[in-house]
């Protein structure tokens, strides 16, 4: 297969304004944050974020105005730092449309995309205002006649995931929890993999079972050491509580937030850039 390694700048340059972007990881863990920072640097606009449970990544893309809608089940810094301030402000100002989901309905939409069907029936949702608020329709089971909620296919234009190891053709190894990264990679039209390390793929031949995403489903591979920072990356580093505390604190005031983005993100070293 062909070498798919590229720079973070070039990989993110392929993400169009208005794209539906699926972001791997979960809350404070293994989000592709170096790629998210590059999205902010390139000043993308009109993005729709797809994620089950987001935190810093979704908050930053909302707070900087890169994202104008989000199909998400949860956005928050858990009990560590509480609510997502940039996300809150953007939604409360009407600058970000929340396409409210249960995490499982995000998964159902991705499954429909993966399986090439227009919708996925889903258990649950009874008594919730979410289906009505979202316009989720029901279908009648043609066998027993029961009504079931149908989640429309959710096809990301691009999925961006950060993994521990990848080879140059895109075979991607995830150590520990895979979250929804594999579903996102299968459902999306294009897949960008950022990796702590790019390794010789021959080393994967002994236990191919450990490769989460096969290279032929991947379009671009970027070496991005600490590419999940300030999220954790299992086996590599914990989330950066100090940085995140500064971020959340800065969000309380708009000027402080702008200053934080300028000094801590835009001017900081481009992770994964060609040196």
């Amino acid at each position, binding site marked *: 297969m062909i070498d798919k390694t590229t720079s973070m700048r070039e990989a993110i340059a392929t993400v169009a304004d208005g794209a539906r972007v699926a972001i791997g990881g979960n809350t404070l*863990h293994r989000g592709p944050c170096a790629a998210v920072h590059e999205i902010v640097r390139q000043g993308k606009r009109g993005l729709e974020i797809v994620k089950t449970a987001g935190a810093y990544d979704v908050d930053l893309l909302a707070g900087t105005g890169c994202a104008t809608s989000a199909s998400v089940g949860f956005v928050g810094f858990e*009990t560590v730092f509480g609510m997502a301030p940039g996300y*809150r402000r953007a939604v409360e100002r009407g600058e970000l449309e929340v396409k409210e*989901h249960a995490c499982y309905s995000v998964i159902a939409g991705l499954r429909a995309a993966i399986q090439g069907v227009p919708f996925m029936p889903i*258990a*649950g949702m009874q008594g919730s205002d979410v289906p009505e608020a979202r316009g989720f329709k029901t279908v009648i089971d043609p066998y027993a006649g029961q009504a079931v909620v149908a989640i429309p296919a959710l096809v990301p234009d691009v999925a961006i995931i950060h993994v521990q190891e990848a080879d140059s053709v895109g075979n991607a190894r995830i150590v*520990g929890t895979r979250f929804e990264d594999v579903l996102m990679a299968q459902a999306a039209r294009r897949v960008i993999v950022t990796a702590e390390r790019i390794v010789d793929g021959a080393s994967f031949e002994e236990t191919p079972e450990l490769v989460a995403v096969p290279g032929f489903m991947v379009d671009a591979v970027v070496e991005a050491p600490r590419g999940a920072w300030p999220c954790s990356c299992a086996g590599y580093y*914990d989330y950066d509580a100090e940085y995140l505390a500064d971020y959340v604190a800065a969000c309380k005031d708009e000027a402080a937030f702008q200053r934080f983005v300028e000094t801590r993100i835009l001017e900081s070293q481009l992770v994964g850039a060609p040196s």
Partner: protein
Amino acid sequence: MIDLRIGQQTSIATAEATDPRVIMVVSLARLLRDGETVFHGVASPLPMVAILLAKRLHAPNLVYLNITGSIDPRPEHLPVSTVDPSLLRGTRALVTLTDLFDLSARGRLDTAFLSGVQIDGQGRINMSVIGDFARPKVRLPGGAGSAVLMPTARRTILWRAKHDPRTFVERLDFVTAAGNVDRVVTPLCIFQRRDGRLAVESIHHGIMPDSLRAATGFAIEADERTPVTPTPTAEELSLLAEVDPTGVSGSEF
């Protein structure tokens, strides 16, 4: 459970048996049964500690499931983030969050722990918005898996580290999820759902019935005849101190 304040790490390991944090985590642990499958999601320090405590107390064969996909992990240090890789330690298998939702969807998840920023008298929750959905006064984090888990898990145990009329409300601004709620554990009492309504099962030590009523936005019955939540035993306290020496479960308060 979501808290606007940064979770403080005050240790409850040394706290007294009447400390509401201790009563909450012990009460949650007592509700769990040996051999059942139990799941907690993001932002769930109290359930995490309660599950680990229950496994030490009376439920060694309880199957502990969480978003990391680990099964019965043995974390070395308890994380404040309940999706933390430290919850992978000691697991022999890894499933995905999708697998866990599927498990519940097909009726094989016994107990799900969930919370709500607002909880009404039917045990329904709001994790979505305060105010109008389209243009909210406060955008909340969202219900995560609750809209699916509450109707499909065999039972849901709700917990909330805050008990005031803005939390326990007569009317939710938005119904994020509804379903098979069994109990609701708060710093003041334990609610049990009977005939679709939350009723006070027991009131915690030192809480006055009228202050409980005043703190609850929907009508409840509570008087001097209302049972008092059994005080945590010495064994429960010492095992809690072993399970949560750094007081992670206190981070919700």
